[in-house]
């Protein structure tokens, strides 16, 4: 009898056999299973790393297999673009369930980690991919055409200058000031939370680039007449004239009527 056979009734033998079986089937699967349809260079490692990050940070609300729970929807089909957007703008992970996930300055993950999680989610089901840099560069777009598209499709929620607007029940469309072209594109194509989906057959990639160009032009230009008071329109202008306009006038009137020293 050889040494291995002599130890076949060792207590650890069963455990070792299962482990070997798992490794073998796992390796076989990894070698033989069909790759996802995305053309991007996603490696199995990336998906694996993404899955781990997902399970550590996202599964509480989205389920272990991203199938969704009462606190968070299923992520099957949202695509890498959604992950890149949500995590990249700090919206995800949400600190607590709420009507809306606000954008946060502090992004918890670096680019590699975000790409990994995106790869994992993309591997679940086909969905929008991270857009090509060709279409997210505002410099190449036409801001005038973008403005027309923006006013028809976006201004009713986000305000004509992208200053943001209210939705029902405490939800809101956020301000679009100083957002990267990539994130703008991804938001349009994935329709985060209340925002509708503007897929590439609704608003073509060139049109999306025009919209990005428009928003970036507004970023650079918006103070043409002076302080904009938040670009919120007549409400802030009215507040300003009552507080400062009237206040200054009354100040001068009081001074005018006082006896001089």
């Amino acid at each position, binding site marked *: 009898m050889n040494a291995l056979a002599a130890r076949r009734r060792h207590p650890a033998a069963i455990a070792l056999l299962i482990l070997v079986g798992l490794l073998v089937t796992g390796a076989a699967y990894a070698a033989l299973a069909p790759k996802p349809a995305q053309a991007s260079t996603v490696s199995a490692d990336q998906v694996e790393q993404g899955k781990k990050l997902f399970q550590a940070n996202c599964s509480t609300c989205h389920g272990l297999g991203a199938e969704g729970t009462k606190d968070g929807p299923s992520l099957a089909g949202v695509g890498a673009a959604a992950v890149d957007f949500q995590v990249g703008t700090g919206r995800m992970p949400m600190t607590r369930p709420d009507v809306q996930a606000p954008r946060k300055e502090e992004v918890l993950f670096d680019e590699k980690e975000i790409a990994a999680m995106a790869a994992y989610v993309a591997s679940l089901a086909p969905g929008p991919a991270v857009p090509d840099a060709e279409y997210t560069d505002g410099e190449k777009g036409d*801001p*005038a*055409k973008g*403005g*027309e598209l923006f*006013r*028809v499709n976006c*201004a*009713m*929620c*986000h*305000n*004509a*200058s992208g*200053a*943001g*607007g*209210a*939705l*029902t*029940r*405490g939800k*809101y*469309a956020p301000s679009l000031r100083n957002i990267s072209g990539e994130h703008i594109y991804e938001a349009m194509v994935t329709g985060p939370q209340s925002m509708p989906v503007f897929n590439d057959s609704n608003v073509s990639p060139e049109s999306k680039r025009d919209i990005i160009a*428009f928003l970036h*032009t*507004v970023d650079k*230009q*918006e*103070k*043409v*007449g*002076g*302080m*904009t*008071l938040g*670009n*919120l*329109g*007549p*409400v*802030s*202008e*009215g*507040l*300003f*004239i*009552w507080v*400062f*306009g*009237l206040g*200054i*006038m*009354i100040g*001068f*009137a*009081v001074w*005018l*009527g006082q006896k001089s020293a």
Partner: protein
Amino acid sequence: MSTTAHTASGADRLRANDPEPSTPVGGGMRKVGGVAGWVDDRTGAAKGVGYLMKKVFPDHWSFMLGEVAMYSMIICLLTGAFLTFWFVPSAGQVVYDGSYLPLKGVTMSEAYRSTLDISFDIRGGLIIRQIHHWAALLFIVAINVHMMRVFFTGAFRKPRELNWVLGAQLSMLALVEGFAGYSLPDDLLSGTGLRAAEGFMRSVPVVGSYLSYFVFNGPFPGESIIPRLYAVHVLLLPAILVGLFTVHIVLVALQKHTQYPGPGRTNDNVVGFPVMPVYAAKAGGFFFIVFGVVALMSALVTINPIWAYGPYDPSPVTAGSQPDWYMGFADGALRLLPGFLEFTAFGFTFSFNVMIGAILLIPVMYGLITLYPFLEEWVTGDKREHHLLDRPRNNPTRTGIGMAGIAAYCVLMFAAGNDIMAIKLHLSINDITMMLRALFFVLPPVVFWITKRICLSLQRRDRDLVLHGRETGRIIRTAEGRFYEQHEPLDPYTRWNMVQHEQHRPLELESGVDENGVAAPNARSQRLRAKVSQFYFKDRVEPVSPAELEAAHHDGHHVEAIEHQEPGGAPLVEVASSPSTDNADATESDRQGH
């Protein structure tokens, strides 16, 4: 000159006792005299203008609010005239080719394009446009605050009821003028407002659709609304505003300005400063100040950035669609009025949800405002001329009614900004709307009651101050070892402000029947009158009379020990003093320093 008499020699001594020559008149003054003479030769105006120059105006900052309104209107007229040189009031479609790149190649109306040109391609155009719009906003702010001042001080009483009526009409016309003005550029925001206006017209029963087609000359938007609004804004309303406003200030000059009560001021005089030279300088200077402040605001703060909204199109709309602030109360009413107020009956649609806020609110509100002086006259039965103003606290019911009205107005105005409040304060817009709906009914009575109570308390405080004097913070120890705070009686000038007013009494109800038992024809209205009069004047605080003050002097308690404190008299033994209460009327012991 007399010194020369001593040192002069010879012939000069002969002239030593000549009368002093009068001050030589400078060349400039001679010219003015010349021109004035030429005009007077032809008009006899010297007497009139001389009289006007000597007119006296009382000095109080709250009297300048009407001036702010007047000067803002003049600024609008000036800058508006400039704008008409470049603005094109046409809805004809053109393609933009100016210097604002985000709109290059976009199809828009001529009106919008010309406004963009004014803003970006004409030197000084943007500053003139911004001055025009900021001055317009300030105009209506000043009108409202001026109206509130006139209301709370009772300046609308006889003989000024007519001026109040004129002012109310001016105020309403100013709203329409502003609406027409900001709709002229035909941008997305104001165009959405015009779209809503068309919906308002439709809601009028029977003639609604006809009204809409007549005003817009066909289906909305049509090509006529911009030129028509231009005629209204540039020609019709300015003419009416200037005309009514001229009558308004002529009446002020004729009836002379009211004044706050004070020492030396009576109902039969006006105390203040004459037009020449003081008021000419102050009021004239104030015009430049108003203009300068508006110019500064226009240099530093954007207003109505029409380039950001884009040209009007019925398909897009911007979040945060509000009219200019002065239309906010009507827009807010539309947001709060619930949908169930619209119903169909007999095959016709009654849209009260729109009509109440859009069509009825402004006339009803201004109607109530216009009628108020007559209501008060009915309630007080007071037919005397009033030239001394009321302190608001001395008429608590009127002040309370005014505050309640302002509360209701503010609820509506804030309702127009409900979506801005929702995003800035992180609230639900639905909750804000529901709360404001409730507040519209709950807040005014609460505000009325609180204001009235505050006024009555302030009156009692005034009484207290007169009767017991000012607490000086100085403590006196008597020989027996008791401690009192020394009170200083008010000097007669300060005291006068608190005792000069008269309190109205509720009207007594005369017997509703004559000696034969026949009911008087107006018995019911007289009963109502007495009831309302009771509501107004039942709770009142009378001003202190000399007898009461004398009684307070002799009031048994030594606590105030007022009788020992004629101003300048010495107190009893002084123990401690707080330096901060020293003032010009300090008693001798203070000056001895402790």
